């Protein structure tokens, strides 16, 4: 029972973090809020038997990705969004759509969990499974490692190609200026490149040079 209560607590906290990210004007506040969500989710993963995933969630998401985001926010020295942040026609479509969606899903989840049906239909044939008993070593590094290099080795390798592409893309996109600047003998040209709009306009030539 306690574990259930904690579960609800973590999930509610995750949702609260999401709301915070959505609502807070300053990007740093939003980022920290999202960080909270991710940590809560890591706890939820752990309670769901996915210990390795919980660890990855903390290391990769909270540790790497969010730090990168926060770093960029600070690097670009971004302030709060102005008051126009929410004053848009998008609000009039987005908020009602979200409300309707959430309320419908809530009703569905409620009925499903309670074992009642809003009305008989196809969904009822799926049923709400009781949690299965976990096999030995479920979610451990060893068993997941075996899966990754066994059954799922091809997707695993393809993922590495994806990572490589991401790295190349990121380097290409940000490295254009420094490549151009290197040609001028200035190795530490980042600040200069940022400040110099004209340099950025002339970037394609440098980009090609880099690609070559």
């Amino acid at each position, binding site marked *: 029972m306690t574990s259930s209560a904690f579960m609800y607590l973590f999930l509610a906290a995750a949702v609260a973090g999401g709301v915070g990210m959505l609502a807070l004007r300053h990007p740093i506040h939003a980022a920290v809020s999202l960080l909270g969500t991710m940590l809560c989710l890591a706890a939820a993963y752990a309670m769901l038997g996915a210990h390795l995933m919980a660890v990855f969630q903390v290391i990769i998401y909270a540790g790497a990705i969010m730090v990168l985001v926060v770093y960029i926010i600070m690097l670009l020295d971004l302030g709060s969004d102005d008051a126009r942040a929410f004053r848009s*026609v*998008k609000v009039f*479509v*987005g908020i009602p*759509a*979200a409300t*309707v*969606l959430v309320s*419908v*899903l809530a009703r*569905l989840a409620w009925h499903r969990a309670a074992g009642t049906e809003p009305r008989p*239909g*196809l*969904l009822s044939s799926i049923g709400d499974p009781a949690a299965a008993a976990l096999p030995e070593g479920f979610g451990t590094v060893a068993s997941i490692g075996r899966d990754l290099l066994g059954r799922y080795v091809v997707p695993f390798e393809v993922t590495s190609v994806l990572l490589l592409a991401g790295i190349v893309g990121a380097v290409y996109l940000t490295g254009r200026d420094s490549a151009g600047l290197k040609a001028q003998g200035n190795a530490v040209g980042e600040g200069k490149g940022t400040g110099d709009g004209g340099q950025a306009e002339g970037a394609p030539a440098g980009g090609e040079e880099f690609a070559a």
Partner: protein
Amino acid sequence: MQASPSNLLVLIPLLPLVGAILNGVLGRRFLKPAAVHTIACGAMAGAALLSWAVFFQLVGMEPEGRALSQEVFAWIRIGSFHADYALWVDPLSAVMCLIITNIGFLIHLYSVGYMQGDPSYYRFFAYLNLFVFAMLNLVMGDNLLVMFFGWEGVGLCSYLLIGFWFSEEANAVAGKKAFVTNRVGDFGFALGTMLLFAALGTVGFQEINHQLAGAAPPSKGLLEAAALLLFLGACGKSAQIPLYVWLPDAMAGPTPVSALIHAATMVTAGVYMIARLNGLYFHAELASQVVLWIGAATALFAATIGLVQNDIKKVLAYSTVSQLGFMFVAMGAGAYATGMFHLMTHAFFKACLFLGSGSVIMAMHHEQDMRYYGGLRKFMPWTYRTFLVATLAIAGVPFFAGFFSKDEILLWALGSERGHAGAWLLASAAALCTAFYMFRILHMTFWGEYRGLPPERLHAHGHDDHGGGGHGGDGGHGHGGGAFVPKESPWTVTVPLVVLAALSAVGGFLGLPAGLLGHHANLLEGWYEPIFAHSHVSLQHAFHNPGAEAGLMALSVAVAAAGIALSFYLYRTRPALPGELAKRFAVPYRVLLQKYSVDEAYEAGIIRPILVGSREVLWKVVDVVAIDGLVNLVGGGLKALGRGLGRLQTGDAQVYAMWMTGGLTVAVLVTIAIL
């Protein structure tokens, strides 16, 4: 009839096509005139030689299986509808091929002299070759669609060549008139083809004639209608009432064109078509009656107009219309072989006459009015001699080509089971007129005293008739401006004349009267025998003895002699009389001179109402208000819609995402509602 395959056939139309393409594409920039006419005449000579080869191959075959065919490529195959591009040469089309390629070659040769110095020399030969290609498709086609392709092709070339000197409006208008008039006929042809397909399920000539051989066909009404519609097409192409009006105007084209297209070959397409579909017309008795009467009426009608025309080419044009009427009389009377016989002899003498007139016109500085001619005999001996022979042939003087064929037609018009004394009377009257107006040409052009051109006409014609082209000294136009002496044309002109005159003289012996000299005397009838075997219309019983035929023959000789004598009396003995007669009978003379005002009647009765109706109703009401309104409404509506939707494309990715979210919500709701 089973045909032997032959790979030669496709070369016959292909050679002129290649010539046309070469001259048409390269002629303007890269080819000298000598190269142009070498290519064109070479292509024609090749086609002519191949035609002879094919002809002799046919001669060497058994009469029952005397046919060659070649399936060049599969053209249209939809379900049971098969129309391949296939060629078929049997005795009928072989003769047509020979006429087209050989006379075509002679006329090409003639054109070398006639068109010399024309700035569009290459264009002329390209069109001429293209015409021959289309005409060969018309006669060699194995089915109605290939024939229709050729049919339209010759129409196109006719249009292009009539308006060859298009910088003068009258020529362009004449070309347009020919084209539009032919459209009416072609419409009938197309409808007839479709109807025939509906009735018999095929458009192949062999299948059609095979199905119709023997017992009477089931759907006779459909066949009659198809035959009538196809005859409408023939009326357009072969210039019969009511669609003959374009042919006299078609004389605006260069004279070789008039000879080749508007006398020897294209205008006989209608006759050939009926001969080709003899099975159909054999069963379509009503349509045959229509053919007979239309032919007879046209023969006389055109001949009477020809009596009073002063333009030498106009007279020949009406003569052509009239002679075509004779051929249709034969077709209507069921004498298909006889009609084809006259087609052939007519091709000889009419081509010769046209080319002779062209020679005269060239010598006379492109003056076509016979009132300025006279006494040309001593200036142009060869032109005169050949013209005389051809005139004797067309007038029906015994033992010349036209005598045998015309006599045969008159016999059938009266004596056939389908003939009628009225039709015979009309045709005989036409024969009388023919003899008269042809000798009138001789009197006015070659005999008597040379009247000469008045200087102002000389000047007027010196330049504009060739579209401003500088034609050289060849052909005897001295550009001195003052008195000039007509000169005989060069050899390229006279050689074709001599050949054609020889054919006009002896061509008739191919079809000696069978009734008098026995069945074997008529070579052509025996040659055509396998084609028309199942469409045999016989003579009435009374005409089965030689006496009847001999009597009729004597009568037609008398008729011709009367016409000739009348012309001598009017133009030699009492030269003043024609003028007096014209004054005394002013009204009929005027009517004839105005060509019965048919053009004006068409103008007032058909063209003007259509024009006015089109302008006032179709354009101003239907088009502007209804169609444009509808189009504008649709267009405007879509434009407004587009403008509205265009506002959605803001370039703001978030808005796109917003719509996606909205759509996702709807999708979820719908899914839940359904499941």
